[in-house]
């Protein structure tokens, strides 16, 4: 069964889509069959990959026209990575799209239909704690919270955690907190360092990996590629997502009781 990882944050601009995309690429490059599902009514994944807003069919076609979800998957140059885009939903109907995702069983059925042989399903949600976020958490297994290392983001962290806790108690007992991922970290700035000090001092589930603030994200966005696709020397920021994917796999193994022990060895 695929691990469904829901990227969620009540605050906008914390790096959900950037994390979803680059994490999915990192997992796929480790050989883990992965699907990104774009649940953002704005189609953030497609926009990040420099696609026209109506370029790709996707979830909207599944929900509105009854198209087979498998036919909507977009292949990538990585054989282990596919994308289920948002689809050609009229922006005027974004509100209806969100409510239907929440009130119907479409999302669960769609995920079930596309996850054969998939190890990770990365669900990218819009900012806020509205119906799409709730629908994703209701069918997800793991919640991953990107936390922008700035005071305003820290102040909203409790809102997201409260919703996760509520969904876990009342709707989806399988949902667990995978972790809090500090993003846009600038340890040379007092405000960012203060936030990190607070998070490191007693918060649960904080990843060891942090994502630094860097212009390279905007450069990648400009040409519509993940960080590891620049060519030339590997960007250090791309390596962060490799580390994150490793940490996530280890954490899931630990939390689900999967043994990854190995026999003692001798070097010489």
């Amino acid at each position, binding site marked *: 069964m695929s691990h469904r990882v829901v990227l969620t944050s009540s605050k906008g601009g914390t790096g959900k889509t950037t994390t979803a995309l680059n994490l999915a690429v990192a997992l796929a490059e480790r050989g883990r069959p992965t699907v990104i599902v774009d649940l953002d009514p704005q189609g953030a994944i497609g926009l990040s990959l420099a696609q026209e807003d109506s370029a790709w069919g996707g979830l909207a076609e599944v929900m509105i026209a009854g198209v087979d979800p498998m036919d909507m998957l977009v292949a990538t140059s990585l054989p282990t990575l596919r994308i289920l885009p948002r689809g050609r939903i009229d922006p005027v109907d974004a509100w209806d799209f969100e409510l239907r995702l929440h009130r119907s069983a479409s999302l669960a059925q769609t995920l079930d239909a596309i996850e054969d042989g998939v190890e990770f399903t990365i669900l990218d949600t819009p900012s806020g704690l509205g119906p799409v976020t709730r629908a994703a958490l209701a069918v997800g297994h793991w919640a991953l919270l990107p936390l922008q290392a700035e005071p305003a983001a*820290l102040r909203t962290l*409790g809102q997201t955690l409260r919703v*996760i*806790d509520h969904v876990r108690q009342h709707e989806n007992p399988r949902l667990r*907190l995978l972790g809090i991922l500090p993003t846009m970290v600038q340890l040379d700035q007092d*405000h960012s360092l203060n936030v990190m000090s607070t998070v490191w001092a007693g918060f649960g*589930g904080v990843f060891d990996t942090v994502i630094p603030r860097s212009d390279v994200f905007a450069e990648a966005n400009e040409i519509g590629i993940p960080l590891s696709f620049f060519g030339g020397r590997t960007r250090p920021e791309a390596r962060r997502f490799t580390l994150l994917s490793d940490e996530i796999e280890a954490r899931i193994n630990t939390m689900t009781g999967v043994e990854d022990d190995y026999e003692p060895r001798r070097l010489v």
Partner: protein
Amino acid sequence: MTTNPAGLSDIDAARSLSRRLAGLDTDAVIEDAAPTPYLRFAPAEAAADAAVSESPAETEPLNDFNRWDEFLAWGLNRTRSSAVFAIDPQGFVIGSSGNVPPDGFEGAGAELSYVMSQADVMRTEMGTLRAITLEFASLHITGVRADVEEAEGFVLAFVDAEALDDVTRFQISRQLEHSFSVLL
């Protein structure tokens, strides 16, 4: 540098929640028992605001469940109800999920079972009783049965501000018929 740059109790609450969700403080107070500074919409308002009609032609694949708790979790998610409980032919609640009140649904389960058994007396050419909806001032209880002989007397009851619509009731009944022999 401070250890709490926002200087807010929100951050202390977030810290506690994160530790509990990460499995570090498993004995922390659960949400519903703890006082919160938040206001909540009445369920009826929220449900009315969010209501979206389903297509009557919608047909869904059937799931294979091995346990009642799996079935109830699916039913809760499928209907977006506040709570669901299952009643056996003797009127005993054999499982529940969702926003279950502290004293459970034992009383409601027994009464609902009795009400449906009384309605069974009306059996005529109309066929067997499939479902019943009780409308109270602040919520509805919708009882759904499976139309198979071995499931006679078993009821799934959904508690919510809104009654279940026809399509949802039909799907619940189909799923119950499909799963019942395994769950029994």
